[in-house]
């Protein structure tokens, strides 16, 4: 029996250590801008996991693919490390008065790494391809505000149909008609799914996914599956990014711990994450250079809006939600369990989001306050009793156990009620339960932004249009005042004006608590001693172009 079990134990134990679906990030992101110039004659090796999809921009929706992908492709705008949008391929993006039509002018002279020019059509064809359901691209929904999107979601398409809202005027100009106002569009287009594609793509998309050709600061030299993805400088690129190295090699790791050991042992230059086992020591580890600053990912758990005794919009439900939120000692969890790789939240977006405010009304609901929590819970009990034991589900294959054990203990100790953590073995089962609305209690939710805008966090997760399977509002939260503000923000004359409205919308969330914010994931990672220019961008990814030796 012995060996048999031990070997099988091994099979089972993987979860402990694997680089798993913990945080499946949003669809990529564009290269980061930097003012620095010059370059080294050196190649930097960085951490990555095997991309889960072929490297096609519209089909890349997780970090394994977006790390290299973001370096191979350049979009209309790029974001600096604080998430501020700057024109990249675009010369100008001009909205009409109510943000229902955009006129886009490209800078001249852009070329793909195969030497073919980047034209207006390179964008419109690529966008239509991704939006067309026949082509099975996971990022299709990002084009949903463009006119003609719904026509491309029907059965019986052949895959070449174009979005009717896109009109090419000449080689460097095209217009975009929106089906409804979208003031965020000029930011959205910096997302990787909006990258242009060369003509060679359409001949054989499958082969392209294995050896993509883009217009970004780097081009693919070689992809040895399961081993490494080698990028070299793209000579045709002349955008915002000024690489300070000759190339980046993405090493494929199956486990972050192994990568960390490699950084310590001088085998790997940079990784933009730290294994849980090393979070306690990496800041003071003399063998590495550490980075740890508040980042853009927010971790929460949602409470379904129709959960008995927690119904949103009812007095009892709101009291209980606030009581639960105030009974979680986030400060201790961040310092003791996350060892400082997280930051206590004050809102529903992140400190890296443009328009972020630390002073929203209701942020005290996210602060540990045991006496107030108890008081609110008792008030709720006065309205209705016999509350079932509260359970919070999470997927067990993403290293979430210590965090959820701590949350549950904190609620239990503060409120003196029965609370349990309810792990679901695999991410796919967890997502299925969430999607089918079968979880009777809280459930883990996290949001990795696709592009730096409060809209990405708020509309997708809390607008009633995004509920009931049409978005990521998995708790089916619905508040008409909130929805109204979202619509207003879309029609706002500028992104700054929109951000003010998003602040007001968040104050509603801070009272209603459709989800309980837990912490912001810090952008944290390590570099080998001697590697210079190690910093991380608004997406919690390393700024690859800045790295040099």
């Amino acid at each position, binding site marked *: 029996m*012995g*060996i*048999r079990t*031990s070997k099988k*134990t*091994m*099979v*089972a*134990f*993987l979860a*402990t*250590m*694997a680089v*798993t*679906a913990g*945080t*499946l990030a*949003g669809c990529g992101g564009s290269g980061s801008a930097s003012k620095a110039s010059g370059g080294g004659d050196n190649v930097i090796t960085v951490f990555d996991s*095997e991309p*889960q*999809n072929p490297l096609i921009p519209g089909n890349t*929706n997780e970090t394994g693919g977006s790390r290299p992908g973001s370096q191979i492709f350049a979009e209309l705008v790029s974001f600096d490390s604080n998430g501020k949008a700057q024109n990249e391929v675009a010369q100008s993006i001009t909205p009409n008065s109510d943000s229902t039509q955009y006129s886009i002018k490209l800078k001249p002279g852009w070329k793909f790494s195969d030497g073919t020019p980047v034209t207006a059509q390179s964008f419109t064809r690529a966008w239509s391809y991704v939006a067309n*359901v026949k082509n*099975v*691209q*996971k990022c*299709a*929904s990002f084009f949903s505000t463009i006119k003609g999107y719904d026509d491309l979601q029907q059965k019986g398409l052949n895959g070449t149909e174009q979005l009717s809202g896109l009109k090419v005027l000449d080689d460097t100009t095209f217009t975009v008609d929106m089906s409804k106002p979208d003031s965020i569009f000029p930011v959205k287009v910096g997302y990787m799914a909006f990258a242009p594609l060369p003509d060679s793509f359409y001949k054989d998309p*499958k082969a392209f996914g294995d050896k993509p050709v883009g217009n970004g600061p780097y081009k693919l030299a070689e992809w040895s*599956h*399961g*081993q*490494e993805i080698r990028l070299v400088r793209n000579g045709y690129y002349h955008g915002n990014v000024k690489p300070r190295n000759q190339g980046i090699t993405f*090493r494929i*790791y*199956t*486990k972050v*711990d*192994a*990568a960390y*050991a*490699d950084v*310590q*042992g001088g*085998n790997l230059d940079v990784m933009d994450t730290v294994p849980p*086992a090393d979070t306690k020591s990496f800041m003071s580890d003399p063998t590495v250079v550490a980075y740890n600053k508040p980042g853009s990912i927010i971790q929460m758990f949602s409470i379904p809006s129709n959960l008995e005794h927690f119904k949103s919009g009812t007095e009892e439900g709101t009291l209980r939600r606030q009581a639960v939120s105030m009974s979680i000692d986030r400060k201790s969890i961040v310092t003791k369990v996350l060892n400082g790789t997280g930051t206590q939240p004050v809102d529903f977006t992140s400190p890296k989001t443009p328009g972020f405010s630390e002073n929203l009304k209701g942020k005290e609901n996210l602060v540990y306050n045991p006496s107030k929590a108890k008081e609110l819970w008792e008030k709720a009990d006065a309205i209705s009793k016999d509350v079932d034991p509260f359970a919070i589900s999470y997927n067990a*294959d993403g290293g979430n156990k210590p965090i959820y054990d701590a949350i549950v203990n904190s609620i239990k100790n503060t409120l003196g009620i029965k609370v349990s953590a309810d792990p679901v073995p*695999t*991410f*796919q*089962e967890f*997502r*299925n339960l969430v*999607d089918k609305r079968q979880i009777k209690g809280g459930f883990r*939710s996290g949001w990795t932004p696709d592009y730096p805008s409060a809209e990405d966090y708020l509309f*997708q997760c809390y607008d009633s249009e*995004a509920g009931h*399977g049409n*978005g*990521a509002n998995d708790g089916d939260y619905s508040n008409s005042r909130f929805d109204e503000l979202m619509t207003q923000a879309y029609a706002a004359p500028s992104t700054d004006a929109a951000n003010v409205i998003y602040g007001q919308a968040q104050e509603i969330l801070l009272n209603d608590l459709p989800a309980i914010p837990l912490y912001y994931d810090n952008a944290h990672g390590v570099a080998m001693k001697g590697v210079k220019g190690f910093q991380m961008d608004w997406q919690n990814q390393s700024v690859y172009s800045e790295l040099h030796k």
Partner: protein
Amino acid sequence: MGKYLLRRILQMIPVVLGTTLLVYALVFALPGDPVKAMFGDKPINQAVAAQIRAEYNLDKPFIIQYLLFLKNALTLNFGNTFAGQPVIDEIARAFPVTIKLGLMAFVFEALFGVVFGIISGLKKGKWYDAVILIVSLLLISVPTFVTGFLMQYFIGVKWHLLPVTAGNDPGFLDLLMPAMVLGSVSMAYIIRLSRSEISSNISEDYVRTARAKGMTNRSVIVRHVLRNSMIPVITYLGQDLGALMGGAMISETIFNIHGIGFLTYQSILKGESNMVVSIVTLLTLIFVVCNLVVDMLYAVLDPRIRYA
């Protein structure tokens, strides 16, 4: 013997079929929906999800899916992974590494396990017998991942004696530490097994007889005691070889080895039925062949066991 061999080879067919069916059924029964997981925490585009399901036959009833898999497998087409890679390519990439690692671990555990087991068994009660026993007990009762992490930290990171991780296209030295971690538990079992077999065989009548006939102690031990004691040890090793080929999940992850074990694990979590069934089929073949070889070895080692 020839007839027996033929029969055993024919028997492999139902085993392989039975295993694929069972495993396919298990993957089918896995709770959840792999396609939904592909969208991460992001909204699921139901139209795109439906297309993906159709592409991978996930929308068809179980038995149809299985038969389609079998049909394609006969033409050596094992399908694609959800990432669009041919299953066969991924296996072909992972398997050589696993074989290398597995064989090294096998040699390690067989060599040290048997040698220490013999020393221990022949010198029962001596101090080194006690040391060997205690070490083997520790190896059994401390989980492998603990042993692995400690070895990696001290031998690799702190003392720089061996490479920290194996990485791409690993060589002998890269795999040495992982192989030791991988083989350690089995080595402990083999030590115990050989020790107990030897100490019980050494007081058998035939040993007394051989000694009485004037055989030297050395040839008594080599020709009689060892030969008889090795039967259960070989059974053990035979199965272990099969298990080792199944991949060394822990060693592979700790030392970043892209082998079969990790591939299997990931595929199970992601619900990649084609991948899981293909790997398991391959492993079943290996198991069955190992077992056959072990059974053949019995007959060689112990003439009393005969196959008709």
